[in-house]
């Protein structure tokens, strides 16, 4: 009889995870070298949902690109047109009305709540805690209802335009929004308490998939992944845009850099997002929501960035005398965070691959465009 223990632990095997895999939400191919059950090395093979959107942007007018960029990704869909619009506004020297700046924050933070809760729910699913998964998804549904009621869509809000926003809040919508936020607060607090204390969650996430601060800096990770490894960087704080400089912004950081820390940062940021929206509703100035003319965007170039739910999203826009941009380039947070998986997965167990991959809240459609 073959000594199974001996043959499986002494040699290194390569196993494929993905591109289509039950535990991955989107297609990505990981070639993983394992020794026994332990991961020795990881190679990442991307490109399964590459759609050439960057090429397409140069065939659309700058105004059409507001629509196109919103369709790059669903979970952070609002961040794309917002940052693209910020770049175009910089080139044209447009001053966005004050009320629109607050309304942009509201749209962005609602998306953040929904996006972060989605990731937290998937974590529960991967842990095998299905009731918690369904519960978090149910709470997230409140955020989905807000999006559907306020913007008319559950994912692509269509909230941003160059020079302002395309929606407004009246008294009735504001009252509904405040009520929905009031509903969310105790629910999110309860989820935070569960993630802090539940044995199943802690057992599968504490000390798993660690990204040390120095490795996080080397990989240039952004967003909750960076902040969970002790990097105090949030675009809303270091390079404020919209109305963030006037709002009670709090940057949450933790130092352990494990799966659990990344989840807790996302929960804390969902909670902070509610406070930011409340502050916006309280301080919302009057006036127009957008500029009433649609100026040509002159020749120029600009860089704009915002803090999407997954971290820093940066846009580079170069225009010439044509209505179509000469070049549009963007780099999404997940693009930076993939590389960190090599550190997170090193010496971890095969069984934890899906949990660790999910902990960067990966967005493949965003990464590949």
């Amino acid at each position, binding site marked *: 009889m073959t000594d199974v223990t001996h043959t499986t632990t002494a040699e290194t095997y390569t196993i494929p995870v993905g591109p289509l895999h039950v535990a991955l939400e989107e297609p990505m191919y990981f070639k993983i070298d394992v020794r026994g059950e332990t991961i020795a090395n990881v190679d990442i093979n991307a490109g399964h949902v590459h759609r050439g959107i960057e*090429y397409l942007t140069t065939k659309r007018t700058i105004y059409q690109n507001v629509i196109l960029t919103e369709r790059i990704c669903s979970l952070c869909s609002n961040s794309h047109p917002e940052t693209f619009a910020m770049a175009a506004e910089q080139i044209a020297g447009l001053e966005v009305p004050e009320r629109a700046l607050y309304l942009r924050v509201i749209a962005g933070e609602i998306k953040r709540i929904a996006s972060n809760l989605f990731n937290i729910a998937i974590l529960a699913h991967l842990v095998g805690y299905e009731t918690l998964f369904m519960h978090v998804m149910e709470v997230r549904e409140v955020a989905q209802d807000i999006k559907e009621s306020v913007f008319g869509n559950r994912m692509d809000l269509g909230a941003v335009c160059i020079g302002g926003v395309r929606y407004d809040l009246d008294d009735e919508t504001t009252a509904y929004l405040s009520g929905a936020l009031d509903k969310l607060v105790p629910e999110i607090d309860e989820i935070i308490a569960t993630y802090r204390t539940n044995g199943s969650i802690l057992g599968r996430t504490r000390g798993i998939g660690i990204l040390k601060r120095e490795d996080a800096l080397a990989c240039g990770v952004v967003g909750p992944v960076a902040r969970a490894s002790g990097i105090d960087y949030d675009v809303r704080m270091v390079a404020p845009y919209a109305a963030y400089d006037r709002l009670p912004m709090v940057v949450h950081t933790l130092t352990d850099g494990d799966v659990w820390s990344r989840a807790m940062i996302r929960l804390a940021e969902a909670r902070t997002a509610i406070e930011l929206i409340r502050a916006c509703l309280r301080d919302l100035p009057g006036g127009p929501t957008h500029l009433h003319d649609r100026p040509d965007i002159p020749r120029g170039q600009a860089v704009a960035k915002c803090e999407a739910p997954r971290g820093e999203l940066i846009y580079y826009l170069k225009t010439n005398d044509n209505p179509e941009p000469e070049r549009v380039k963007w780099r999404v947070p997940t693009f930076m965070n993939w590389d960190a998986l090599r550190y997170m997965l090193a010496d971890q167990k095969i069984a934890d691959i899906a949990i660790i991959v999910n902990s960067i809240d990966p967005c493949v459609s965003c990464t590949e465009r």
Partner: protein
Amino acid sequence: MTRVPEDLESRLAAVAPGGIDYSEAADVHGTKVVWVALADKDALLPVATVLHELGARLSMTCASQPPAPEEEEAEEPAEGEEAKADEGPRASFGGTVLDGTSYELAYHFDLDGDTVTVIAHVSQGGEIDSLTPLFRTADWSEREMMELYALTVRSHPDPRRLFIDPTIDAAVFERLIPFSTLVNAASTKGLWEKILNKKGGAA
């Protein structure tokens, strides 16, 4: 609190003997945006070294092919004026001819919220140094530049395709790709013919 040091221009100029074209602006919150065009593309690595020492993070890179000025193309050559021929197509800072084929490479660095964009020009099919010895984050970005354009990144540790399948022709951004081809559905008929051919005959 400002993260771009006061003397950034002189520090960068000191390591780029060919010259730099430096401009700086700040928004209402004081966040700075700096543009640095390099006269010589080989100054990229020394300039990036200065930024690395300042604690910068390579945030994004972007390659593009700036189009040639339209009015010059429209001009008919029969005029035979020396002055016209002397002007030639517009050139970049540093003298790279902008005839629609050369590359403009923009490297966006983050200095704790401020952005420094370093721009280098490379002729078509040319080479540029890899920034991977300084910035791990340059790896994927440079692979992406290489698969989109006929550009070579010198000393890249892993110059494989990043997103685009190796079976697809190189330099996709240098060709016009019909939308139907882009989405792999040239026509219903074409798609079926492709499948049937692969199966080796009619259905």
